[in-house]
């Protein structure tokens, strides 16, 4: 196992200690040591936004807190959803009396624990709305889209929700913005190599060297078909065609392209895919508003990447362009 660890069962607690050593002035750690609360918030923001999920996806989810993004994040064990306790701790600290939005990936355990937390918060008089992000096109057919998993598109949905909240919007308005953003966002991934969960010490799934699994999820959930690895351009075309097939960009819409590398895959290969996808979009007459590549949500040292396209109407464009700074999410803005 090529990993540098102490006791595998302590790795999340130790990671949080290290995060606090690096960013203690920017974030506060809650009593359970599994809640991260941002000390930087726009005064204009009335509601609280809480994200979270299993560890092992860094920079997601504590890296998603910051002005213009989430106000706090609840962490679970590696690839396990957080329990209600850190979610409640964070929500109680970020609520300003106008309610809290829960924004997290649509996984069974996460839905249950965030829902449990929401139920508990009723006793603290805190109103909660939830939006489980569902953007992984390969994880369920269009007619059961609400059952889809949440992957890299969640970063863009959070960007939209965060910007809307900083405009002073109400909980319902921000919830609606998140749903609208999710509706115009699709992601599909391709797995190239497994990762190793610390406690397990062996690969989470078997994928023979030289083969790929189109549609694979961020925990190595099986995709649509295992085949020999294709050329980068051919794979990029396959992913893009699947996304555009459902998204059908409208006239006034431009595209935000996000290529998320899953951990081991180098930025070089992410940029090669950005090259092809932006070329194809322009050829298809779809304006590219912005393209980014980087590690937005990883799966420890998994090899592979995902392609996300968000179709921007005027509102979404305004919100993705709003200023913001997340603790460790690769920047989505124009750097200068």
């Amino acid at each position: 196992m090529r990993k540098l660890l102490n006791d595998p069962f302590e790795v999340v607690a130790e990671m949080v200690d290290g995060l606090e050593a690096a960013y203690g002035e920017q974030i506060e750690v809650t009593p359970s040591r599994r809640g991260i609360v941002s000390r930087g918030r726009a005064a204009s923001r009335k509601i609280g936004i809480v994200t979270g999920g299993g560890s092992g996806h860094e920079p997601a989810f504590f890296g998603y807190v910051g002005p213009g993004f989430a106000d706090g994040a609840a962490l679970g064990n590696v690839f396990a959803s957080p329990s209600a306790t850190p979610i409640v701790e964070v929500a109680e600290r970020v609520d300003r009396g106008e309610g809290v939005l829960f924004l997290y990936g649509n996984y069974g355990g996460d839905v249950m624990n965030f829902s449990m937390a929401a139920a508990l918060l009723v006793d603290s008089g805190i109103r909660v709305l939830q939006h489980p992000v569902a953007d992984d096109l390969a994880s369920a057919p269009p007619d059961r889209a609400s059952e889809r998993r949440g992957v890299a598109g969640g970063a863009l949905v959070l960007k939209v929700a965060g910007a809307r909240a900083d405009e002073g919007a109400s909980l319902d308005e921000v919830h609606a913005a998140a749903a609208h953003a999710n509706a115009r966002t699709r992601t599909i991934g391709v797995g190239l190599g497994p990762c190793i969960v610390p406690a397990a010490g062996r690969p989470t799934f078997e994928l023979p060297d030289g083969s790929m699994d189109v549609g694979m999820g961020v925990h190595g959930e099986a995709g649509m078909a295992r085949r020999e690895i294709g050329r980068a351009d051919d794979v990029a075309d396959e992913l893009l065609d699947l996304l555009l097939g459902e998204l059908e960009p409208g006239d006034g819409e431009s595209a935000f392209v996000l290529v998320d590398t899953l951990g081991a895959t180098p930025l070089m290969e992410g940029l090669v895919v950005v090259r092809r996808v932006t070329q194809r979009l322009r050829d298809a007459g779809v304006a590219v508003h912005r393209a980014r590549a980087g590690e937005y949500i990883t799966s420890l040292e998994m090899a592979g990447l995902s392609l996300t396209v968000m179709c921007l109407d005027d509102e979404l464009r305004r919100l993705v362009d709003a200023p913001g700074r997340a603790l460790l999410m690769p920047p989505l803005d124009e750097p200068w």
Partner: protein
Amino acid sequence: MVAAFARVLAATEAAQAELDALDALAGDGDHGMTMVLGWRAVVAALEAEPPASASDALHTAARAFADVGGTAGPLWGIALLYAGRVLRNADVDTTYAATAAGAAVAAMEEIGRATVGDRTVIDAMAAARDALAAASGHGTPLDEALRDAASAAAAGAEATATMEPRVGRAALNPERAYGRPDAGARAAAIFWIAVADAG
């Protein structure tokens, strides 16, 4: 109420191996341990903050059990929470018990997006709810009503042996668990049997 939870913990500890084995058939074999950790947290929390009422006790239990996380944590957490809200400091009689059980099952169904017949804990809980509702209708006293609920829950759990799992890890490899009851349903039966002290 506190004594009841202590009985549930003891009964679940005794059945941990059985529950883990059942969960290992089509899941990850941790349901027994998870339920023991859950009831331990409940008993410890109740000893730390002695509850003023049954609803207080259930509220404390809810927060404590939820801390276990995973799937069982929120399921039992929200069930205990909604049951506690129904009681709202009332003295527990058969009618209140039936209403509380109904609230608990509805909460589980909502959070789990599952229902009777999906081969989950809900199948045993719903059986207990129905038994309590019938007892309430007949004016049966609480302890006897709880014994009815216990035997109904046990039967409900057994019935899951021939059901197709449609949610949770079991749904990923249904054939493996066929012929044996669902771990979550057995854990619920053990809960009701201990509450009714009909062990």
